[in-house]
């Protein structure tokens, strides 16, 4: 039997249909394209630029790309794409609207500030005459091996962190803008994989760093699987992966059933299970209880600049995606998801605040604090009102800068073993280095939500939205958790200012202007959003409408 005859047993020659090239609105995708493009360029730089110059070239490419992308976001917003011109582009895959642009702008700015902390090279003592950053000399070498020593001696640095960060930022830009479930999933993977890698790259305590990366990867893969399974089930239910299409089916406005899915379409069981799995995938990324287990270990093990970046930008992207999913895809189901999210928000707030009290490591403490904050933000998400959207947007903007700033301060406090993250070592820091301690105190007060800081404005915004959305009980639990959380923030302040410094205590390294910028921006944003938040509230308010 000839080959074509065999082939014909199970194929028929289909008439070749004309495939239309997809129309892509490049201009409106510019921010993402710039960032991803720069990441690709960055890989080229790794391959072709000499080792000495690489750091500077990568820095330049990264900063220029982020600034240009931010300018593009501003341009799009100025062109009305955040309000009247909002539309769905790239064949229905991506939404360019207010929330997307606001969050993209936030991610780009936090990313930029975080990249400054990535590039910091003055904190670690010089190794063999070379200035080094927080990242390992050679990721592929076994910790403690001769290869590693040789790499350090040769002055290698892992400049790959810049393209990796750009890829992650690129994925994060798409994540809150994704308008169908597959794009959502791909964006999730695009930003998660570089983050797993970045977590493993710490210069010191490499085993811990690698352990954190493995944990993050395994649990992350697990949650991705849930998300994917959820997508499959929802597809079975709706016959489409596009957000608007699913929403229509949920609302019951579409009746033409895909014959291939006739058995499953409209089956509410699929929708409920699938929707729950989608939520699980996203709640994992925001670090909400009970999907928070990875947070403390990963925050502690990852290089601190990466932790700051991850804690801020991932949260922004993931909450953006969560908002869009709940407000665009599943509003018809809100009577089903609201009780569940109530429960999640309550346990997240309480558990984050309570467990943080027992922490003795500053990075773990900030990790649990980030869990509690995820709970506060969820309270705004639950409001299911336009105010809910804008308050969450505002909170995310305020929170991300405080977070990057706070972790940047953590990188400064050092002893012989690198960063001194154990809380006992922070005793008396206020007497040794009053300025650093005061700055950190400002960040802690913002986390605690003390008035005249951005934390208070944000907290007030989300609690107000929640109360107006009929979640008064949630607000009461929120303020109780805030009171509990205040305890451990204040404990750190007590430690810094009212405890006697230990003789063998850590020193505070004097950073380069890069980290100073990151910290300075953090303080400035904290105070401005605390005292005069009106402009930014307006901005978030105008950006608070999703396109469908």
């Amino acid at each position, binding site marked *: 039997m000839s080959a074509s005859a065999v082939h014909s047993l199970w194929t028929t020659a289909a008439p070749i249909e004309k495939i239309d090239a997809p129309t892509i609105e490049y201009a409106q995708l510019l921010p993402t394209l710039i960032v991803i493009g720069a990441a690709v360029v960055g890989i080229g730089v790794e391959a072709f630029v000499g080792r000495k110059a690489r750091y500077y070239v990568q820095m330049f490419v990264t900063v220029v790309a982020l600034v240009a992308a931010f300018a593009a976001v501003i341009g799009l917003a100025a062109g009305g794409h955040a309000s009247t011109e909002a539309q769905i582009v790239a064949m229905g895959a991506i939404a360019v609207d207010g929330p997307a642009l606001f969050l993209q702008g936030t991610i780009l700015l936090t990313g930029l500030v975080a990249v400054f902390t990535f590039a910091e090279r003055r904190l670690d003592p010089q190794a063999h005459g070379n200035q080094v950053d927080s990242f390992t000399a050679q990721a592929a070498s076994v910790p403690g091996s001769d290869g590693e020593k040789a790499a350090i001696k040769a002055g290698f640095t892992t400049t790959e962190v810049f393209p990796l960060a750009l890829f992650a930022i690129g994925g994060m830009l798409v994540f809150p803008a994704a308008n169908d479930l597959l794009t959502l999933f791909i964006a999730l993977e695009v930003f998660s994989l570089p983050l797993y890698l970045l977590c493993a790259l710490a210069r010191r305590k490499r085993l811990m760093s690698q352990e954190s990366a493995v944990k993050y990867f395994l649990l992350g893969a697990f949650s991705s699987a849930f998300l994917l399974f959820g997508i499959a089930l929802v597809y079975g239910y709706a016959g489409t992966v596009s957000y608007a299409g699913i929403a229509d089916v949920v609302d019951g406005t579409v009746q033409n059933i895909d014959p291939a899915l006739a058995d499953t379409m409209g089956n509410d069981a699929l929708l409920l299970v699938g929707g729950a799995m989608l939520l699980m995938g996203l709640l994992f990324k925001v670090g909400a209880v009970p999907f928070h287990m990875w947070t403390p270990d990963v925050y502690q093990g990852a290089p601190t600049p990466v932790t700051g970046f991850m804690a801020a930008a991932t949260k922004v992207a993931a909450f953006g995606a969560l908002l869009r999913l709940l407000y665009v895809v599943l509003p018809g189901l809100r009577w089903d998801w609201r009780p569940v999210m109530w429960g999640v928000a309550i346990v997240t707030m309480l558990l984050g605040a309570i467990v943080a009290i027992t922490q003795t490591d500053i990075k773990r403490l900030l990790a649990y604090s980030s869990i509690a904050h995820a709970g506060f933000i969820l309270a705004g998400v639950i409001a299911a009102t336009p105010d809910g959207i804008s308050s969450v947007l505002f909170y995310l903007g305020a929170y991300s800068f405080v977070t990057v700033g706070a972790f940047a301060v953590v990188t400064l406090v050092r002893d012989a073993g690198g960063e001194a993250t154990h809380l006992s070592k922070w005793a008396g820091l*206020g*007497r040794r280095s*009053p300025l650093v301690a005061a700055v950190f105190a400002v960040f802690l*007060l913002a986390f*605690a939500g*003390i*008035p*005249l800081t951005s934390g*208070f*404005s944000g907290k*007030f*915004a989300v*609690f*107000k939205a929640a*109360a*107006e959305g009929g979640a*008064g009980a949630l*607000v*009461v639990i*929120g*303020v*109780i958790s*805030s*009171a509990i959380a*205040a*305890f451990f923030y*204040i*404990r750190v302040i*007590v430690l810094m*200012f*009212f*405890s*006697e410094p230990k003789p063998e205590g850590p020193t505070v390294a004097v950073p380069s202007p890069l980290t100073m910028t990151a910290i300075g921006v953090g303080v400035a944003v904290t105070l401005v959003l605390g005292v*005069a*938040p*009106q402009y930014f*509230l*307006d901005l978030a*308010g105008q950006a608070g409408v999703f396109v469908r």
Partner: protein
Amino acid sequence: MSFPLLTATAAVPAIGAIVTAAVPAARRTAAKWLALFFSLATLVLAIVIGVRFAPGGERYQLTESHAWIADFGVRYELGVDGIGVALIGLTALLIPFVILAGWHDADPEETGSKRWRPTQGFFALILMVEAMVILSFEATDVFLFYILFEAMLIPMYFLIGGFGDRAHAGSDEKAATQRSYAAVKFLLYNLAGGLIMLAAVIGLYVVAGNFSLQEIAAARASGELEMATNTERLLFLGFFFAFAVKAPLWPLHTWLPNAMGEATAPVAVLITAVVDKVGTFAMLRFCLQLFPEASKWATPVILVLALISIVYGALLAVGQRDIKRLVAYASISHFGFIIMGIFAMTSQGQSGATLYMINHGISTAALMLVAGFLISRRGSRLIADYGGVQKVAPVLAGTFLVGSLATLSLPGLAPFVSEFLVLVGTFTRYPVVGIIATFGIVLAALYTLVLYQRTMTGPVKVEVARMPDLRVRELVVVAPLIALLIFLGVYPKPVTELVNPAVGHTLSDVQKKDPKPEVEAAK
């Protein structure tokens, strides 16, 4: 637009705080004089407010209103009534004395720390507290008030925790531990109260749609804004809880003895004479105006709590071995009187309560500051370590006696007038409560006189034998306060005239009239 007098009165100490903090490390003395200068400038402005304010005029005067955070319905709105003017006056009056009394409290050799410019920090924090307290007396926007109410905790916290009393049994380390414990306890109690209030503030916004005290009160009075009974009660409780922590009312009082015991005497005065007044002031201004029905509903319970505060505070004061903690418990007893006067809902009661706030501020300042001078000489806070001081330092002992007598409300000194008014005001409506409260006075006589007797009279203890008498700086602090106590004791009219119209407004908010003097009713 007229000159923003109210803003200026708060801005001057705030600017003073920044200027003081910016003084170079070596110019410590300049920082002190600058701080004193700014506090005196504030006092001048406070006097101008007093002069410009017309007691019989509009309810809120010298008002200012600017847009602030439109999204939250928040405006920067200021205005004062007679009660506000009186309390601004008290604050502005006391701060220069606090600064003078604490002149050496934050000297590096005194605090024993190598910290960065402690002196500048100490005086800057005091001025910062002053600015926030004054602005909170002026705020007629609930949100603005809330922000100040919370934010003032932070400088207070650093004052308590960072500049504690070194006169302490035991080691420096132990003192530091107890001090930070006191500071944290202070902050956590007040922050928890404040956060509960935050929930109520948000709730109020959801119900009323804005934060303007005048607008909400007007809408309430005209019946435009209806609140469901339960909503009103819950909101009232949220507000009242925060104020009761701050005031402090039993059983939320336990932070006060710690804070006052560990802080330096001037800071202790700042806490009890100035900052705590914001709590009682806010009960009058916010609880009664915004939630009149709920206030009436809660009155019986609050009166009982106030009574417990009066008696319990006094009883514990009797049992104290530590001079500063004794004054703290005495203050708890006095705050019980103030709160009782407010919730008796009679004009005498509320005028008396307002007057009480002023007089308690002055008398406690006098007693506590002299006690501070005494403690700094001997290096101990324990009553048992003293004896016979009046033979060694007669001026010190004399001023201490006047302060003590003021605390027990001796007729002829200012606190007598207010205590009498509060008791009369309470008695006309709640005779039993009034009768029980008088026991507080008896106990006050016990604890103050026993304190005086044990420390000042008797044989001279060896340790106090070489104790110097009051210095000029200390006399400058104490003499005016004592003069004021006597003046207001004999002639309280300036303050009562200022306060009475405001009290009338508040009472009309809660729609209460004074009970008619009936002989039958008193039986």
